[in-house]
């Protein structure tokens, strides 16, 4: 149990720059999930924390001690690999006992700790087996057990669930969360599955091309994504983005698709006519005609059971996906839709989130009171 701090971590493989300065502070017992598309540098970051790669620049601090130059064996961490990386020639018991033996613990204590951890994970009766005699799920548990039994300062997980079938994955996800809470070990968990990320993490790090785009709790990220990348990455189906411009002195957005929508949260900074990107999640769009409604020309309806996904095009040619439970129009028909102002996300032309000025003033006032 310890804190972890990353300061300005950069990593290049030759001329390929993979990480461009990652800063992160993890509190004791916190579960941080690093999520991002394939190839964005998640594993590289984790391996730098583990000491399996050396950062080109920056520092790794575990429990207040700078470990940047230390070997993995001196960092007191445990890692669960995607392919489990069990020692194929050792029994489950020896796999779990390996790290303890190296530490020179007495035999009796090793036996007791391995047995206890194995029982915790429900693999107590498999201790004599070799890894090849186990199912994928059981191997996964052994890999977890090998990490847990050492009681390390830090757990690192690199997509540990991605080789399991869907059902087992959900089950193990819940189990990992329960275990992590119970043991209270500071953890970094890498995944590219956003559901896994949302359900497991105390906080998420959304990575994109070697940068941490946003670090926040899952709900914060969902409610107020820092930019269009995060907004589009978290949430399924993905958020819709529509071109617009700022009008009425910053109080409203005029969509390229037609309607003008007054912001629910007040005036947004920027000049009259400044280009904007307006985002709205598919589940927030409502059917309904009236002033401010947009005609959606439906071209595909995907029924999902309780609800349907409706894909269509707006008069501007922009596509829009809508998720609705009470309506399934025919393909080719026109569905009038309304974008509720309270559900809009406003981004500038570069994709950065723009907050309403008034709210920012309020935060500043709160800060002043606090000080």
């Amino acid at each position: 149990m310890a804190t972890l701090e990353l300061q300005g971590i950069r990593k290049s493989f030759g001329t390929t720059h993979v990480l461009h300065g990652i800063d992160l502070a993890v509190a004791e017992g916190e579960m941080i999930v690093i999520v991002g598309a394939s190839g964005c540098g998640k594993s590289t970051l984790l391996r730098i924390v583990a000491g399996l790669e050396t950062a080109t620049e920056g520092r790794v601090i575990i429990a207040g001690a700078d470990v940047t130059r230390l070997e993995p064996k001196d960092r007191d961490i445990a890692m669960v690999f995607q392919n489990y990386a069990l020692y194929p020639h050792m029994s489950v018991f020896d796999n779990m006992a390996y790290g303890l033996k190296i530490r020179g613990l007495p035999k009796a204590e090793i036996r007791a700790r391995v047995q206890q951890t194995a029982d915790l994970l429900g693999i107590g009766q498999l201790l004599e087996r070799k890894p090849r005699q186990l199912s994928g799920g059981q191997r996964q548990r052994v890999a977890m057990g090998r990490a847990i039994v050492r009681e390390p300062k830090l757990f690192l997980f690199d997509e540990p669930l991605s080789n399991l079938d869907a059902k087992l994955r959900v089950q193990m996800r819940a189990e990992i969360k329960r275990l992590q809470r119970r043991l209270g070990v500071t953890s970094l968990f890498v995944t590219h599955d956003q559901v896994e990320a949302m359900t497991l993490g105390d906080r998420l790090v959304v990575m994109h091309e070697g940068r941490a785009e946003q670090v926040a709790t899952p709900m914060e990220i969902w409610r107020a994504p820092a930019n269009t990348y995060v907004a589009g990455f978290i949430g399924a189906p993905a958020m819709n983005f529509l071109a617009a411009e700022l009008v009425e002195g910053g109080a409203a957005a005029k969509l390229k698709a037609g309607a003008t929508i007054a912001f629910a949260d007040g005036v947004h900074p920027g000049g009259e006519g400044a280009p904007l990107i307006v985002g709205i999640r598919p589940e927030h769009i409502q059917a309904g005609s009236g002033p401010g409604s947009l005609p959606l020309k439906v071209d595909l309806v995907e029924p999902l059971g309780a609800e349907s996904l409706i894909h269509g095009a707006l008069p501007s040619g922009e596509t829009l996906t809508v998720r609705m439970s009470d309506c399934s129009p025919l393909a080719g028909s026109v569905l009038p839709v309304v974008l509720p102002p309270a559900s809009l996300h406003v981004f500038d032309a570069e994709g950065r989130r723009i907050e309403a000025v008034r709210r920012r003033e309020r935060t500043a006032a709160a800060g002043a009171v606090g000080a």
Partner: protein
Amino acid sequence: MRKRVIFNDKGLPYLLLAPQLAITFVFFFWPAGQAIWFSFLRQDAFGIRTTFVGLENFVELFQDPLYLASAWNTVVFSFWVTLVSMAVALGLAVLADRHIRGAGVYKTLLIWPYAIAPAVAAVLWIFIFHPQVGLLGRFLREIGIAWDYKLNGGQAMLVVIVASAWNQIPYNFLFFLAGLQSIPKSVLEAAAIDGASAQRRFWTVIFPLLSPTTFFLLVVNIVFAFFGTFGVIDALTKGGPAKATETLIYKAYIDGRVNLDLGSSSAQSVVLMLTVILLTAIQFRYIERKVHY
């Protein structure tokens, strides 16, 4: 389900196998059969009269101190050739397995010696070990060591061991390298994270995982040391000085070709043949079980 080719004509499969069977017969079974037959015979000194003597050749063989001495030579020689060539090859393979710059060139260079015939290799070693013209030989004499492998039996043994081991290193190297590369990197990383030092990782993870390769090479190397080193010994020491480097295969050759004692030579060949069959049988038995894990 395995696919099988179905032949309608019962004769065709035999016809297709015939060339292979013929070659095996002509070059293996026939000479082997002859050796077994000759091992029961004895010729007089002029090769005129041949008598059937049963197992007498074998009995004499195992009572002959010279034969027992050459058997001991073979044990010593094989032990060291196998140990040295495998240990050095493993060391080199571990180095090559680390991803160093120029590893490709390094690997290619290491494989070259295998392409050199043992007799040619022996000549190279003469240039190194020869007391008058050899680089190392001259150096040793200059620093005051009485180096002359043509007179000193122990030194002669050392020379043939080194030359034979050198010849066998590339083969072992290739197999060890392949073995190392089939060990998943993440398993070694897991061991590093579990707190194991490089040395400990080697002995507790890499070495056990290499054991099938090691066992296979062990048998191959022993067989090589028994039979494949004839050329090296013939070119370097001719079994001398005073039979100090005479191994079983070399003695069988000398007794048969030079001393023309066909009966004894054949009996020796039969003993060697049985040894090889035994080694191969052990090999198959254990490889089938995939050794350990």
